């Protein structure tokens, strides 16, 4: 087996292990919560007999580790259980929400990641000049504004005043693709503005760091054009930190956008989680928590692997 494959396999195994540990934490956390699940389903007026019946039915009388294993088994076979509040199958009701979240995150990422990197490269090329300051200034300004404010500004100008895009982004199954894109135009723009600066600044800093190296000076002395030096020699060596920050922002786009979802009335995972937390619907909270953890761990793993592939030195740990 080639060392790279082995390393990647190790990383993946580590990720899976971590996810298992997180699942234990999530399960334990929801067990510590005060109150009894049966009681919270049946409400205060429940009779002791009804409580006992429901406990039996839900298997709450078994020891915690058995319930954990049963839950984990269910998760592995795609059965996330049934929501306490609406009695709907969790997997079936999460899936459309997750799809929506991924759809929005995908388009926001597709715009923001290349844009951030190109702007970062441009900032390095014209460093300390007008262009650099303009790019950095605008990006920092858009990040410094709270996301709800950016959202409301976009709604005010583009939905209410100009009426170019809808102000609410309700999407549903069977919606034509064009309409769907129109619907997510504003939230995707808001998200882009929110995550842009972080990635752009990181790209700029990482490349500037490399630009101090001796081999860059050599390249300059060889007479290469400034942009070629950045593209061919500096960027590949700066890729690891850039990938890291990009992945962090992608994770944010998936798990951290509840405010944007509320403002634009976008039916994503964030609002779904909040609704169920409010009703103390533990199985749903567990399921969403696990999905969010998996996203974080997965994306961080991708960042690690990309860094290893980009930097041969990391392949040979001392």
């Amino acid at each position, binding site marked *: 087996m080639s060392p790279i494959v082995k390393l990647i396999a190790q990383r993946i195994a580590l990720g899976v292990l971590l996810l298992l540990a997180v699942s234990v934490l999530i399960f334990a956390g929801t067990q510590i919560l005060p109150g009894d699940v049966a009681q919270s389903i*049946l*409400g205060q*007026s429940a*009779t002791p007999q*009804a409580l006992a019946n429901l406990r039996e039915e839900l298997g709450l009388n078994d020891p915690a580790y058995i319930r954990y294993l049963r839950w984990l088994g269910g998760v592995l076979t795609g059965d996330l259980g049934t*929501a306490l*509040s*609406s*009695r*709907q199958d969790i997997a079936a*009701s999460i899936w*459309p*929400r997750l799809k929506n979240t991924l759809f929005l995150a995908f388009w926001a990422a597709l715009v923001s990641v290349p844009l951030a990197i190109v702007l970062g490269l441009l900032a390095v090329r014209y460093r300390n000049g007008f262009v650099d300051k303009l790019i950095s200034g605008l990006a920092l300004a858009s990040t410094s504004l709270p996301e709800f404010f950016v959202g*409301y500004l976009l*709604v*005010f100008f583009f*939905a*209410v005043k100009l*009426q170019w895009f*809808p*102000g*609410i982004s*309700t999407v*549903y199954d069977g919606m034509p693709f064009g309409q769907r894109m129109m619907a997510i135009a504003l939230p995707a723009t808001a998200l882009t503005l929110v995550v842009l600066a972080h990635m752009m600044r990181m790209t700029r800093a990482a490349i500037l760091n490399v630009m101090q190296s001796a081999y860059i000076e050599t390249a300059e002395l060889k007479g290469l054009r400034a942009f070629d030096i950045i593209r061919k020699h500096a960027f590949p060596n700066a890729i690891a930190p850039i990938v890291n920050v990009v992945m962090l922002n992608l994770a944010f786009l998936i798990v951290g956008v509840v405010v944007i979802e*509320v*403002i*634009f*009335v976008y*039916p994503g995972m964030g*609002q*779904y989680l909040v*609704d*169920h937390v*409010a*009703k103390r*619907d533990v199985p749903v909270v567990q399921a969403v928590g696990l999905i969010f953890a998996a996203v974080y761990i997965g994306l961080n793993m991708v960042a690690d692997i990309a860094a290893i592939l980009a930097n041969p030195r990391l392949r040979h740990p001392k």
Partner: protein
Amino acid sequence: MSKELEFLSRGVVAGKLSRRDFLGRAAALGATAVFANSLLSSAAKAQSPVKGGILRAGMQGGAATDSLDPASWSSQVPYFFGRQWGEQLVQIDATGVLQPALAEEWGASDDAKVWTFKIRQGVQFHNGKEMTPADVLATMERHSDEASKSGALGIMGGIENVKVDGQNVVFTLKEANADLPFLLDDYHLMIQPNGGKDNPTEGIGTGPYKVTVNEPGVRLGGEKFAGYWRDDRGFADQIEIIVINDATARTSALQGGQVNMINRVEPKIVELIKRVPGVTIQNVAGKGHYVFIAHCNTAPFDNNDLRLALKYALDREELVQKILFGYGSVGNDTPINKAYPLYTEMEQRTFDPEKAAEHYKKSGHSGPVLLRTSDVAFPGAVDAAQLYQQSAAKCGITLEIKREPGDGYWSEVWNKQPFSASYWGGRPTQDQMYSTAYYSKADWNDTRFQREDFDKMLFAARAELDVEKRKKIYADMGQMVRDEGGVITPMFNDFIDATGPNVGGWAPDGNQEMMGGYALSKCWLNA
């Protein structure tokens, strides 16, 4: 300009602007009299129903945890959707009079203990089956069953049994109740095939729209049911409810035209929204009210003179202007206002520093009075308490305000602490309101108003079938609560909804927000 004129012309039709004023305003805007007159006639024409189109509502009050099971409803969106796809036996109209729905007629035995409802024939469920008295019976059974956890359990508790008798359904009550038909308007009691026992969440009823989209907390949709039995509602081909819990997003959706109507416009932005061309604010006096509640059995509030002093020390007009921005009406220290059937006008209590000081002196109380309030008590409750503090100071009464955290307010402060701010939603009848919060033994008697003579009057009124006699008893009860109770009612809040440019058929209905819940069925889209 034309948008503004159109807006004005609708004002004329709605009776908010005289024809003369309209023509004057039109001239000021530079329109010729002929053009202005033609606009006026097209606005008048728009008042006859137009069929077709998709009517959309943007609503606060929905969550991903909502269900189509009527027994589970407790928030706005599922309730409002239910009003479009389901029907009860009866319906309270905008004037508070009970109208037939799935029951054609009804009547009571002389002692008001046995009620007979004649069930309408030829009404179809959305699944094609005909609605029968057996379905009515099954519905009542399901909502009486403890296991259903129905929101109507409290209502069903007073019913001894329900039986089918030919085309009739007969309710036998444990105790006489002249208001039983009103109780059956409860939105949980949608008549469903076999009472919904087979599948509580299938969402099949007899309403004008059948459920086509059910994405809880996101979007709910309905399609006109071809077999619907009446023709005075259900004009749009399709209806859609979009859950928009954020107030700003809701208003911008209405302005942008993505929805035709919204609920819960915040009083403080009403004046701004009014200026938007095409948008009409629809406010109506409701039964909901904000209260300061003093426990009649706890010192120092067990002294009626202190309670009266506190009642006179409140500037109600000021609170209506500053907290509700005028979108409400002053309260009179009872939970009842003119939106209730059998209401009798009483002398309005006003801010009176002299009387307040007089009663305060008589009470012999000294030192500050502690009032607990919180952001969640009602919108603006903290500000309201401060205004109350200032007006009380003018009467020589020191109110000490304690701001409590919102989390836990309803479990730790309300109905526990002797003097606090709170709110009440309305009930369909006076009997319901008084039974819930003023009957001696009620769990929610949050003023600890425990008077045997009041309870006796409550029962007497409940069993009384003679309307005039009942009205008299309720007037006496209202007087008693006003002068001796522990409730200090500064104001009744309006329901404030808003409609977009093309909505026709809106009529005020104070039973609930959104035209008593029937807005999507009773309105139409002007082409």
